[in-house]
């Protein structure tokens, strides 16, 4: 495959090109579809692109097509609230998120594209004795795994985030918080572009507006050779058929629809999760603030906007129109926490799709259909795990067997009653 070194990004080059009035080269090119690839990755979000990047970088597999029915980063990767953290509860989860946090930390230099990772600290508020106990549980487990996370009292909370109301007569008094200093926010679109640019430079092809209409299989127990026992041979797209021995499903909210095309059933239900952003004001909120019991989280971007998110909506749907009630509940809860923001205005609301599993943990790796891999079921925290899972998926695909780090998240666990316990502590986990 054609390889070219991407243009160097630096202050020096900005000035040089500015003076010469020179355009920057494309981050990735448009291509015609080849007849065949070594692997096709469905879904051009963080997970799909990270998988493509590590396939190329760690395993030299570059005859790869990333296909997206829309544009790169148009799904959950561009709709999440861009919070990253690693203070999860289970060792399996922590392994993952901590590796991702590490990779996010070095991403700007690794990819020579500033993803603006802002390590600003992450606070999960406790409004009751019970949630304080859960925070302490997480802190104690984290401590044993060398994750920097500790329980702090209301006064310390106030020192870190002065806009929070810690008075005892608040509607939902703050009893304390789990403080995770390495947590923060990142420019989620830049993460997408960084992976796409680096993968494209190694020869991986990006195919936007390329919708996979069917997965072509043979030998399986279901109709058309799909299903367990069979293997994939390619995909049918709106731009024609393409053959490939490996097809990877990285489609989050659409995961079940895509897996159905290969005859693989997933225990996943798609729910919407809504988010919103305000007009900018001068920076006043230095950390990420999460309230599990009020189902909301907020951070302020460097541009001054407050970015809010919530828990998943109560009904399963693919509609991303969003609801008014979401904004009302959100505003009510935010004002409970930070009464001083009443005069800020909500600028825009949107929704994204979350692929929820029964144990709030992903489904990764091989499936009963040979050559068909999944990296789905991330629910509300896929973005945080993108880099780590891309690395592990690439490892899995190149070897044909599940990497150790993803073994606990295999599809078989649901049939074998080996659920992962992240749900215990993370009904709302941002």
């Amino acid at each position, binding site marked *: 495959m054609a390889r070219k070194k991407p243009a160097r990004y630096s202050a020096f080059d900005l000035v040089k090109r500015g003076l010469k009035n020179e355009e920057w080269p494309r981050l990735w090119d448009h291509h015609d579809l080849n007849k065949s690839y070594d692997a096709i990755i469905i879904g051009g979000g963080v997970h799909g692109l990270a998988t493509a990047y590590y396939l190329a970088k760690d395993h030299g597999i570059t005859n790869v097509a990333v296909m997206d029915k829309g544009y790169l980063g148009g799904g959950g990767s561009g709709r999440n609230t861009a919070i990253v953290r690693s203070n999860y509860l289970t060792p399996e989860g922590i392994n993952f998120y901590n590796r991702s946090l590490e990779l996010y930390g070095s991403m700007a230099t690794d990819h020579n594209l500033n993803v603006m990772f802002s390590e600003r600290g992450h606070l999960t508020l406790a409004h*009751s004795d019970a949630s304080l106990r859960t925070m302490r549980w997480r802190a104690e487990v984290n401590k044993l795994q060398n994750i920097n996370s500790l329980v702090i009292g209301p006064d310390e909370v106030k020192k870190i985030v002065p806009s929070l109301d810690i008075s005892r007569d608040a509607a939902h008094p703050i009893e304390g918080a789990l403080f995770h200093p390495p947590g923060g926010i990142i420019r989620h679109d830049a993460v997408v572009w960084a992976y796409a640019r680096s993968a494209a430079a190694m020869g991986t092809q990006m195919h936007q507006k390329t919708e996979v209409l069917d997965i072509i299989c043979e030998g399986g127990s279901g109709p058309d050779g799909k299903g367990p026992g069979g293997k994939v041979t390619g995909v049918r797209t709106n731009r024609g058929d393409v053959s490939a021995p490996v097809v990877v499903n990285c489609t989050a909210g659409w995961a079940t629809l895509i897996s159905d095309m290969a005859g693989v059933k997933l225990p996943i239900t798609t729910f919407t999760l809504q988010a919103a952003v305000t007009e900018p004001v001068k920076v006043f909120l230095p950390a990420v603030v999460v309230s599990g019991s009020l189902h909301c989280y907020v951070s302020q971007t460097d541009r001054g906007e407050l970015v809010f998110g919530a828990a998943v909506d109560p009904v399963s749907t693919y509609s991303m129109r969003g609801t008014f009630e979401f904004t009302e509940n959100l505003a009510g809860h935010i004002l409970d926490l930070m009464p001083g923001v009443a005069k800020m205005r*909500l600028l825009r609301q949107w929704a994204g799709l979350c692929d929820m599993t029964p144990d709030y943990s992903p489904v990764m790796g091989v499936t009963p259909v040979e050559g068909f891999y999944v990296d789905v079921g991330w629910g509300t925290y896929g973005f945080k795990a993108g880099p780590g899972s891309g690395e592990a998926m690439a490892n899995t695909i190149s070897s044909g067997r599940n990497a150790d780090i993803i073994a606990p998240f295999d599809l078989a666990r649901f049939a074998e009653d080996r659920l992962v316990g992240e749900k215990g502590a993370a009904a709302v986990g941002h």
Partner: protein
Amino acid sequence: MSPSRLPSGGAVIDRSRPIKFKWNGKSFTGFEGDTIVSALAANGVDVFSRSMKYHRRRGILTGDFWDPNCFVQVGDEPNVRAGHRLISAGIEVSAQNVWPSLERDVKAANGLVGRFLTAGFYYKTFMKPATLWPKYEKILATFAPGGAIDIESTPGRYDKRYSHPDVLVAGGGPAGMAAAIAAAEAGADVMLVEHNHQLGGHLLWGSAEDQKRAASLGARCIEVGVEVLTDSTVTGRYDGSWVAINQRNVAGETIERVVKARAKCLVIAPGLIERPYIFEGNDRVGVMTSGAARRMLNMYGIKPGQKAVVFTANAAGDAAAADLADAGVEVTTVDGRTGADVVRASGSGDRVEQVELADGTVYEADLLVTAVGWTAPTSLANMSGDRPSYDPSAARFFCTSLPDDVLPTGGLAGDGSLEENLTHASATGRLAARRGLTMRNQMRSMTPRASTGVPAPIKDASEPAPLPRANHPELFRSTTHGLVDFSEDVGSKDLWAAAAEGFDSVELVKRFTTATMGPSQGKLETVNTVAVLAEYLGQSIEEVGTTVWRPPYAPVSLGALAGKNSTPHRISSIHVWNKANNCKFIHAGAWLRPDHYGNAQAEAKNVRDNVGIIDVTPLGKLDLQGPNVPDLLELLYVNKWRKLDIGKVRYGVMVGEDGVVLDDGVTARLGEEHYMMTTTSSGAASIWEWAENWLQTERPDWDVRIVPVTTSYTSINVAGPKSRELLLKICEDVDLSNEAFGYMSARPATVAGVAESLMLRIGFTGELSYEVHVPAAHGLKVWEALLDAGKDLGVKPFGLEAQRILRLEKGHFIVGQDTDGLTRGASAGLGGLIKLDKDDGVGLPELRWAADRTDLAQVVSIALDDGMIVPEEASQLVDGETNTIVGRITSSRMSPNLGRSVCMGQVIPELAAPGSKLTVLLTDGRRVPAKIHTDHAFIDPEGARLRA
């Protein structure tokens, strides 16, 4: 030259009422009806802000709500739309995001290096050395645009209102008014919502004739009973025609209101938004749209300049040229319809001094007015599921397919004369009335009554004849580059550069450059962005497409969205007594519950020694009646329920479909087909939903009626060895002897004279105890009677904290504290309770699997070797000196009755046997030895006290 007030004119100002206010610390005077912008312009002010990135001076662009150049700070309110906000006496207005002042702003230096600060430049730098990034980030953050909030301020008063109009009209221009009038005349109940302060739309800044027409249409609206909301915006249309309105002109102390309307039919008549033109220097002070110039002239009597060039491609531009000339402005007209073009505005101090045309002609001018066409604000159509399509001959987008209950009119539907528009709008209004009234009649007819009381829908309303579309030249960008997004400082050159780098779809270019993402929400920017991108890519605007317009249509304050935002607390009838008696409360969900009355240890001891009473009203209570109640209980609980005698009580645990413990409680059989179920306090609502869900979706054939009665009763637990003695004094109609009323029984009772009470003999605390449920209105009376009657028995109230100690002494677990999201029934020590030989039960297959598992963590009672140590809850159990986790402490307390700490926890099965040695890692880092306790209970494992 500065703008100035004309000696006369100005349709919306009252020159007899001057108002004083402050701008950047200096006093100014305007008139009633003036906006901040018009009042300042009348005083010669022409600069209102600095741009976000280059900090260039900015003046009036559109002179209305959407003007991105006129965002100001008013008191502690940031980002106020100065082109819309009316002045009021004493307000303190200041420029935002400038230092040290609006006129001398140091960050204007950014303009010098502008060529290096192309859109997205920050993605390409500040990476090395990595350690410096946090410092770079802090500096970048100082460039955040916008005003400032006062984090110590408290929200003022906001409220909400619900409304159910037959027809809701969004937009009070001529079309909106005509539609509203026609709908009201047809009998519909109509609400008309106008974004600006007056009805009239573009007629307001039109000729005297136009203004007269606006006034008469407005008067007619009132006459026919249309409810008019001005200075209010329809911010969103959600599924089910759920329409959100932000009402800003609210009387009294209320700051803003949200009206939630279930519109049976929605007419969208937002008019059109004038697009700025893209050319070099288009953000200079003195460049404005024709709408802005006419608003200043005709609404506020302000002359916006002395020498003007009017670049016009339509009637609005022609009218602006005429109006300016009438006001004494020297006007040069450049007609865009003939191919003439403006390529450059230049001058000093960011102002317009010269205007250069494509043919090289240069005019001296301090005002450049552009009229190059319109953006159709299709937001509400978008939110109704429509994807608008672009019509190149009219140079704007139109709706394509809308649901039946959404009807567009006015500029959104087409062009034509004012009369043609009014005709279309009237027909639209009649059709909307027909549809709205048809629906109201259908809804009303579902409840039988003599007359529906709803006017019959008119029969002769049908789709209006389509409005003609006028040809309009496609004028988006000149041959030079200029600004596209004024609030984000993004130019057409930035968009091209982004497309060249690969951000070549509208969504990608938006995300990379931030064009359309600022506070103007793309109203002025989206179509220009698409057009510039289409031009670069050599595609049509239709091919490039637009981004999705998302709610809200105009930004809404968080205060208004939250509304009154009073979070109610639930309290029992005993709350007043508790408050008066030194009770410390604890928040438990929405409930305020008594935590303790000063000394929980003493309270717990008194229960074991004498008798205590606790208010347990939040305990979930479901009244179950019907022949299939035993079937339901057998389905929901893990144990069996078909053989429970009347008057008996049984304990049960519920699990989810994954076999994980969900809730627990007791259920009493009160009669042949009558049961009372109790749930945990936190499960009161969710278990009701859970039971109803199973009944309604899985077992609709079962005859079970569920009534939640949690708050119908005040619930008091009377616990302790002297509890029987105490109840004997105030309860006459129940034989309380152990033989007649044994452990796990229920009796109807009259307590302290209160009939229709219920007594359950159960014991969460491990003591002889009676749970007394009395009709809520009499709860306080019974509480006081118990205290009074029990004086000589040593009765004392106790709170949740004492109850936690008592239950822990007894080894009773709390669902969600000692169990977690993975605790299967068997691991919670319920082995004996779970019946796997049932026909059916929620989670039964999973329970069967779990029964065979040997690897599940177990819930156990734990005693530290040093009983003086109370380990913090969540302390981990580790394998010796390693960091391997083998379990955790889930509950811990000092027991006043044993004089040592007592704990519960979860451990791996290998360590769950009584006597197994454990290591507890305290939160301070110490490791201390502990053992699994011999029994679940620390006190009275045989249950003798319970059964006494």
